[in-house]
């Protein structure tokens, strides 16, 4: 088997909480607390979870826009988590990012053409007419007219701006694009256009996406596999069909039950979680979800569940799930 494009192992990012005159560290925000996953070439991994669960932090840490506290990040098998700023630079060509807010992620003082050309200029990949041609090619790729290169970001709509952001990310021919909620700032019809654009580009260039989102419908549409995060940890990781058909973690169950169904007569069991997400400064001991879990047992409050493969390719961190031997047996027999 070939080496996965991206391997993340036990990645942690803790932010110190400082207080007082001497800014003593009085605690840590456990924003990302040991996540492990891998991503193959041409694959999309959806990373979902509610606000504040650390999914954006995870994305930024993988890109080394935030320095990881511990853990390893490998790209094509090479560790990039401890590289210096300078040594990191060549790797940035491989890892690109599309941000959530298309308004704040484009420099308002640069025109669209310069924005898209910037990565090429940074790496000295093209100049003069060649640069112009590359940029107009990228514009065409993302469905913008090359004449629009002279315009400034404020003269574009939200969807168009996100296309500029995508063109900029594509400029360096990266292997992986981290999409940090790329469509959550757009309205629904434009969301669909941008998602479809991302999928078309994946087919064309063999891109991998780490797709961070909170909208399950969007994630279902674009992802091959999905990781569900809760309070800095991945609680369930599996391919999308298996996740939507048989969610194993109680949190995933509750999340899925909250997805709106476009049928006013549909009656289904809605799992309402009580309480709020606990503070990531002081996460509960044992299973992090036990404070809100409808099935929690005594054991959940003391012992932290490990990620286990309960079915082939279906990982979950929950004490209550037993390994499904029959499913493994079926695979083994086949």
């Amino acid at each position: 088997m070939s080496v996965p494009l991206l391997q993340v192992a036990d990645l942690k990012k803790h932010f110190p909480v400082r207080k007082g005159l001497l800014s003593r560290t009085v605690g840590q925000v456990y924003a990302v607390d040991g996540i492990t996953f891998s991503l193959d070439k041409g694959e999309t991994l959806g990373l979902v979870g509610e606000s504040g669960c650390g999914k954006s932090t995870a994305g930024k840490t993988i890109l080394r826009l935030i320095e990881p506290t511990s853990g390893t990040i490998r790209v094509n098998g090479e560790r990039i988590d401890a590289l210096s700023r300078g040594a990191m630079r060549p790797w940035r060509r491989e890892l690109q990012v599309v941000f959530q807010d298309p308004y704040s992620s484009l420099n308002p003082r640069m025109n669209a053409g310069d924005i898209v050309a910037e990565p090429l200029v940074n790496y000295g990949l093209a100049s003069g007419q060649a640069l112009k041609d590359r940029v107009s090619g990228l514009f065409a790729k993302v469905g913008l007219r090359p004449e629009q290169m002279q315009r400034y970001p404020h003269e574009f709509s939200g969807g168009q701006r996100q296309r500029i952001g995508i063109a900029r990310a594509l400029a360096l021919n990266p292997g992986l694009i981290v999409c940090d909620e790329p469509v959550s700032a757009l309205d629904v019809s434009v969301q669909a256009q941008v998602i479809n654009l991302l999928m078309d580009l994946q087919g064309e260039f063999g891109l991998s996406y780490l797709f961070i989102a909170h909208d399950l419908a969007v994630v279902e549409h674009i992802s091959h596999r999905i990781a569900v995060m809760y309070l800095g940890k991945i609680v369930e990781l599996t391919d999308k069909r298996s996740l939507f058909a048989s969610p194993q973690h109680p949190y995933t169950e509750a999340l899925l039950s909250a997805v709106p169904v476009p049928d006013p007569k549909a009656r289904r069991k809605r799992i309402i979680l009580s309480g709020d997400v606990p503070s990531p400064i002081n996460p509960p001991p044992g299973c992090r979800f036990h404070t809100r879990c409808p099935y929690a047992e005594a054991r959940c409050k003391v012992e932290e569940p490990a990620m286990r493969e309960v079915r082939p390719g279906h990982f979950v961190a929950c004490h209550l799930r037993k390994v499904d031997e029959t499913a493994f047996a079926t695979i083994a027999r086949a």
Partner: protein
Amino acid sequence: MHAASPQASRLSPLNQRRLANFRANRRGFWSLWIFLVLFVLSMFAELIANDRPILVRYDGNFYVPIVQSYPETAFGGEFETEADYRDPFVADAIAEKGWMIWPAIRFSYRTVNRNLTVPAPAPPSAENWVGTDDQGRDVLARLIYGFRVSVLFGLILCVVSSIIGVIAGAVQGYFGGWVDLLFQRFLEIWSGLPELYLLIILASVITPSFGILLALLLLFSWTGLVGVVRAEFLRARNFDYVRAAKALGATDTVIMFRHVLPNAMVATLTFMPFILSGSVVALTSLDFLGFGLPAGSPSLGELLAQGKANLHAPWLGITSFFVIAIMLSLLVFIGEAVRDAFDPRKIFR
């Protein structure tokens, strides 16, 4: 939306709006024009106030004394030294065989009027329009040259200290952390030094020339902008497009100067006219105290000190006061208009 025709204007809509806001502040707008006219005029001070004629026609030849010096013998005199065109002997000799075109004021800043009928400082007269100082030098000529020195000094000091301040603030704000912490403590100590006393001590050890005085004042004036630029950089370093630039492989220098600095420039430019007027005041006060430019240089501060020493000659104090007051007011008014122009919330009409 507006039609984006590139031919319409080379300025971006934002800059057009800023220009309109600047113009809308009538006082500042006119102050800028008056200041520019005065500044440009003072740049040609040699053509306005000089003890040599602009052009001499003598014996069929043209002479340009303000750019070249001619011996007295050239005009039929006796000495090999430079001709003193104010000397009636030379003037008559030239008038016989040609003519002279004089500047409006026939005194340079260091020309001593030796024909005074009253003891110096002489009151205003037809020859010395606002009198002479206590060494018999024409006050108006000294004001014109003094204005030029003050403004040039202020401009150079302002620009150089802004460049240093912006770079220092940028480095501090962009890297943050320990760099910021240590630099900030250093700045606190540095700006806590008693500036004026140090300047006086230094100026009495080293004889200050224009350049040395500039360097001395620069030692303390560069800190002015650091705080503002640092704050802007601290704010902007976490903007998404700055993060994006980092992810796109931009080097720190590129991020600082292409992505962050244009944002910090608004705050910086708004401060500029006030820094300029501050620099002018600093020079004037050192001159007033006698620790400024070398003796004999045209200086508003020195004239002000003469005014204080010669209260019976009010034209000294009054004129220098008015020139300084008008110059500083103009700069402050311009500064206000610049501030308005860059204020995103300001709406006129």
